[in-house]
């Protein structure tokens, strides 16, 4: 309905590219790993949004999740950084060319254990960036130890029982004044894809906490990071569709009063079809509340929890040139000889 990209798999989108041109190297992750599904949705979203791969930069930390940027968008620059320290790396890099869209893929260990501080501070700065946490409750790459998002009481063979309450990535993002917060589930590809599209259009930090089961180490029935639990308990706040800028919305596609629309900074729209209740994603307080409720009721609340499309970004503090910073040349960067003479005269 609102999917404006071409339909066929081998067809060319308005960027002149086939879907295949958005692919990455073959995945080396386990078969069935949630992270692979998410990579596929990133590919689909970028293809459908007609994004030019060269206008995207990919970042990650260290972990199975953090490997995945190699598995999509080969034609984008990428940087697989240090464990827990992707936020700073990405923030610095984005200044190089703010016309490039940044996307980071991290894990729950990477962002909630070692990286909690950097994650929160990046969020606080509201840099335009799509920050995906592939959340499986364990350290996959080091063989299944509990991460900070692991369920309290979870028992794993080699690890014993986790005594701590989990860190809630979305709550952390909200409290840090994130301007776009969403939760989803790798097993709900349609929602993942639409959220990624919206995130790419958001002018600010967009945090996506995606439950992404680790089939090798943490997929026990009945535990919160498993496919089965997530499937059973997923409670979407709405049905989400993304409409790109300049696309006509066929408002009569929707029964009056059954949708909410949020216009993002670039003119694109997020159409939220109401489900049980009417959820307003521009109310930060409601977002916090629905998370608390979800926790109390064992719901996996998914969807766009919160968005503030117009909050100032970090770039607003810097009066940056239109030309990408990294293309400026010597004459634009080195002040004149005379100016140094003036400085010398001032120095005594």
């Amino acid at each position: 309905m609102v999917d404006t990209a071409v339909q066929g798999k081998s067809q060319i989108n308005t960027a002149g590219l086939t879907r295949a041109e958005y692919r990455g190297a073959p995945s080396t992750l386990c078969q069935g790993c949630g992270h692979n599904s998410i990579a596929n949705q990133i590919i689909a979203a970028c293809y459908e949004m007609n994004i030019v791969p060269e206008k995207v930069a990919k970042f990650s930390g260290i972990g199975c999740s953090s490997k995945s940027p190699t598995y999509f968008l080969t034609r984008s620059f990428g940087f697989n950084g240090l464990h827990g320290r992707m936020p700073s790396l990405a923030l610095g890099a984005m200044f190089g060319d703010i016309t490039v869209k940044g996307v980071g893929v991290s894990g729950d260990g990477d962002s909630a254990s070692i990286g909690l501080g950097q994650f929160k501070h990046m969020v606080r700065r509201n840099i335009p960036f799509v920050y995906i946490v592939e959340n499986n409750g364990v350290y996959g790459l080091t063989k299944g130890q509990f991460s900070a998002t692991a369920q309290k009481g979870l028992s794993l063979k080699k690890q014993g029982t986790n005594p701590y309450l989990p860190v809630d990535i979305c709550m952390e993002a909200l409290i840090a004044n994130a301007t776009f917060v969403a939760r989803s589930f790798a097993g709900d590809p349609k929602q993942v894809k639409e959220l990624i599209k919206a995130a790419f259009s958001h002018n600010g930090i967009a945090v996506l906490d995606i439950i992404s089961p680790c089939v090798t180490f943490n997929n026990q029935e009945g535990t919160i990071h498993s496919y089965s639990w997530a499937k059973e308990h997923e409670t979407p706040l709405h049905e989400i569709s993304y409409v790109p800028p300049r696309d006509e919305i066929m408002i009569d596609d929707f029964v009056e009063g059954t949708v909410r629309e949020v216009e993002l900074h670039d003119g694109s729209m997020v159409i939220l079809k109401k489900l049980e209740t009417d959820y307003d994603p521009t109310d930060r307080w409601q977002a916090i509340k629905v998370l608390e409720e979800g926790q109390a009721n064992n719901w996996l609340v998914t969807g766009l929890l919160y968005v503030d499309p117009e909050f100032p970004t970090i770039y607003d503090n810097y009066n940056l040139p239109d030309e990408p910073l990294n293309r400026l040349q010597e004459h634009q960067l080195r002040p004149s000889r005379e100016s140094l003479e003036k400085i010398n005269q001032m120095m005594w």
Partner: protein
Amino acid sequence: MPNISKPNEHQVEQTQPPIINDFCITFCTVNGSGSATANSTLLRSIFKMGVPVSGKNIFPSNIQGLPTWYSLRVSRDGFLGRVEKDDIVVAVNPTTIVKDLDYLVEGGVVFYADDISLPLTRDDLVYYPMPIKRLAKEANLPSNLRDYLANMVYVGVLAQILGIDLEKIKQSLDFHFKGKLSAVQMNFNLVATAANWAKDNLEKKDRYFIQPMDATKGYILADGNTAGAIGAIYGGVQFSAWYPITPASSLAESLNELVSELRIDPKTGKQTCAVVQAEDELAAIGMATGAGWAGLRSMTSTSGPGLSLMAEYLGLGYFAEIPVVVWDVQRVGPSTGLPTRTAQSDLTFANFISHGDTNFVILLPASVNECFEMGWRAFDIAERLQSPVLVLSDLDLGMNQWMTPKFEYPDQPMDRGKILWEDDLQKLLDRSGGKWGRYLDVDGDGITYRTVMGNKHKASAYFTRGTGHDEYAHYSEDADVWKHNLERIARKFETIKAYTPKPALSQMENATIGIISYGSSDPAVEESRVLLATHGIPTDYLRIKSLPFHSEVGDFLRTHERVYVIENNQVGQMMQLLTLNFCKEVTKLRKVAETTGLALSATWIYREISGMEA
């Protein structure tokens, strides 16, 4: 309280000749009391009189109320290093006065606030009382400023007794208060009042005089941190991330201020450099590394504890080959150490930083002027080498005001290194039959071509990582690939020696022994060489300006009988690196190193060397 004229009478022999433009005044105050303005006003005034000066602030690691010292050295010969003894003490802090007087030379001078009860420890000194409180009170100053302004009383008294030109003092105040007339006037009035009071009430009994000279032409007064920031600005810095830490903060803070003055594009009115205060040093180096990767001239500035936190990222920078400039304005370590004291003790750590086999270019500025120069040059080297470049300054150099030759405009165009934009890449591909790899050594110098984020050429993108990778930046765990890649990277550090500053050689006739030193120990070394020569020990001197070492260092070692390695740390860290690299000459090396929190002094070096030469 001793009678003022008494010690004077039987100690200072009037027959002794005057001492002109060659002495050290130490101001003993408490921090947060506003004495900094007074002290720097005096420094500037004397400098304006054409007399070489340097100032060293010895301050505590707190904000207010603890003893602080400021040593102002006047040196007609242009020696700028620390001296061990004071000639004149300005005693405003009663809690330290006993110890302060201990540091005075025989027959030295004490200017003291007249509400302090003088100790009876020294009767060889000349004592001048100063009615600081009274004059400040009578001046009818705004009550919130009175305590700060009161320091102007000693400025006036000293001006009168030593012969400092009041006009220059006014100019200095004008400079300090950026022309704010009311402030200048209020301060200057008190100076003048105090000078008048001194003229009327004090009789000159000491032999110290300031007399105008013409020895500061072509020189400026500046601190190393500001100079480093200015250097970076002229080096085209585009991104700086930092976290506050003494004594490095003022580098980033200056940079931040300078950007809005010097780096607004006149055409677009836009800002061409972004300064980000990070949440800590791990984040600062992360941001700087990201920016360097994205093609920006990028830097961070910190001190020891921050450098420790940067270890992991620097290894990534080395291995993923990312240009970034890291200033370490050293303070006394290990650990938190003495945060407000100076040292040169991060050298070996910087050299071996990060796990695995690594290597780093380290620049070693020895003067404020060189802070400026290395401030811009560091970017050229980093982008040429595609690797982190460390600049090791220190508190003494970075935070103190120094007389230094004026900054010279970069004598070379920027070297952006082997960076390829769309057209460059296309040309290379055309030349090479479509072959380009991020880590492919085309030129055989170990340095490979890079594209950066935002390049729109379809072949430009690659994936950067800290894990094993082949010439095309693909992931690899292959043994040979690993080994060859590491060997190529090591080769870059040979190549780069053509770009890094060579050591500076200074020779004396008949010298058979040598001195090697670096950084802020330089002024003390230069002065000690004069002392040594006067005592019949001429020396040659090689000042190391960068690591890895150039072959000139080996030559110097080979051509001297003994070589003294002088530095401000405990273990002799440069000595260690020399030993490592020139082990065959090691029997010639003599360690002259200590760490006390203070800059080295020429007399200490003189004693050490002459002792060993004896």
